[in-house]
């Protein structure tokens, strides 16, 4: 037996995104954001997208390019504090924004990836974040029902991959990437290096290639990936 090869061009991979899709994007700030796949998605031009990402990056970076292109109808996120443009689009009703507590967003994605319907949490009880949520009693405790979240496509950034799509992330670029890898019908990873099978140690792989449908190797990194000079 030999593990299947999932290497794919950037264009062939991104062609899986359709109008109206829900698209998850890895990353927390710059680290782990698939800037190259996002750029390809802007070029591809699928419209009316629901984007799931921790944050909206900063103006003129990553998610903001999608916002500028008018491709995004809805954003499920935790914090837009570094992108005044995204906040303006929200405040003027040009995009619909759903805020989640950060760990709840992470957990909803993981639940989708784990084939669950959702989970019970007490986070936000007594605050406006609990409004509208289903409540369930368990013994003497009260919980909110948080529904699982899945996507049509997930776009991920990895440090290293192999041809089967096994992924390894580096430092805080891991963040939402391994969770989103589990939670989409079509999972596309860009990697700074795609290595031969066996080059990643089996104990050190962060996402098994079973979760990954397509993997594409990045050339020289654009400056979006670099340290932000403030």
């Amino acid at each position: 037996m030999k593990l299947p090869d999932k290497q794919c061009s950037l264009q062939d991979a991104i062609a899986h995104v359709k109008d109206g899709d829900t698209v998850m994007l890895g990353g927390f700030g710059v680290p782990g954001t698939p800037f190259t796949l996002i750029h390809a998605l802007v070029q591809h031009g699928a419209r009316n997208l629901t984007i799931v990402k921790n944050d909206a990056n900063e103006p003129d970076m990553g998610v903001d390019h999608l916002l500028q292109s008018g491709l995004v109808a809805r954003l499920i996120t935790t914090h837009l504090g570094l992108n005044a443009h995204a906040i303006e689009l929200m405040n003027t009703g040009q995009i619909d924004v759903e805020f989640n507590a950060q760990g709840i967003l992470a957990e909803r994605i993981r639940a989708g990836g784990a084939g669950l319907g959702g989970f019970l949490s007490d986070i936000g009880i007594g605050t406006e974040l609990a409004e509208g949520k289903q409540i369930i009693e368990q013994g003497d405790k009260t919980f909110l029902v948080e529904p699982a979240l899945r996507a049509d496509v997930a776009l991920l950034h990895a440090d290293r991959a192999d041809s089967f799509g096994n992924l390894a992330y580096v430092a805080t670029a891991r963040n939402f990437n391994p969770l989103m890898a589990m939670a989409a019908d079509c999972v596309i990873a860009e990697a700074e290096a795609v290595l031969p099978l066996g080059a990643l140690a089996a104990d050190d792989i962060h996402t098994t290639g079973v979760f990954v449908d397509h993997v594409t190797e990045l050339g020289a990194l654009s400056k979006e990936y670099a340290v932000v000079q403030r």
Partner: protein
Amino acid sequence: MSNAKERMVARAARELRPGMVVNLGIGLPTKVVNHLPADFPVCLHTENGLTGIGPTLPADQASRNLIDAGGAYVSTIPGSAFFDSATSFALVRSGRLDLTMLGAFEVAANGDLANWKIPGKFSPGVGGGIELAQKARRVAVLTTHTDRAGNPKLKKACSLPLTAKGCVARVFTDMAVIDIAPEGFTLVETAQGVSLAEIIEATGDVLHVPDTELPNF
């Protein structure tokens, strides 16, 4: 293993398609790998946390930390990955298993499967079987056509506690390949040296037989 069982396993092996992710249950299903070409592009999964299972090893070459869910000492191949038990079943429940092959006590004409408990006799716990049966995209069963007493294992309805409802798509036995179709058990292929009458006799519910000539395995 008898010749008939060996042919059954060899036939089942042809069910694997290039690119699939497959979980082979304990017992006969694990023997399926012996019938795959060395470079066949498939990924085998085991519940205890490994994708990319390599060949089974004898005790003197085994690693004490590397077993499959049946306890057999296995090996890795280039690209194998280890993960925890929650991730392992996340993979199963979220639909990343293209195929699982399982053993059976009983298979019903509606695809119900019973393979984990015989009340009063055998109740070791369900292990990972229920999630494999319920969530793999395709569930195939490998079993002898009848039990040791000669009673049919393919029945109108299961009498034992179910593993999962309506999950089985195809059954490979020492006598035949049988699909679970909307109308019930449907003959697909027959084993060498077995007559149609014998198959019908050994099957516990109506067996639909197509008009066309059926392949022999």
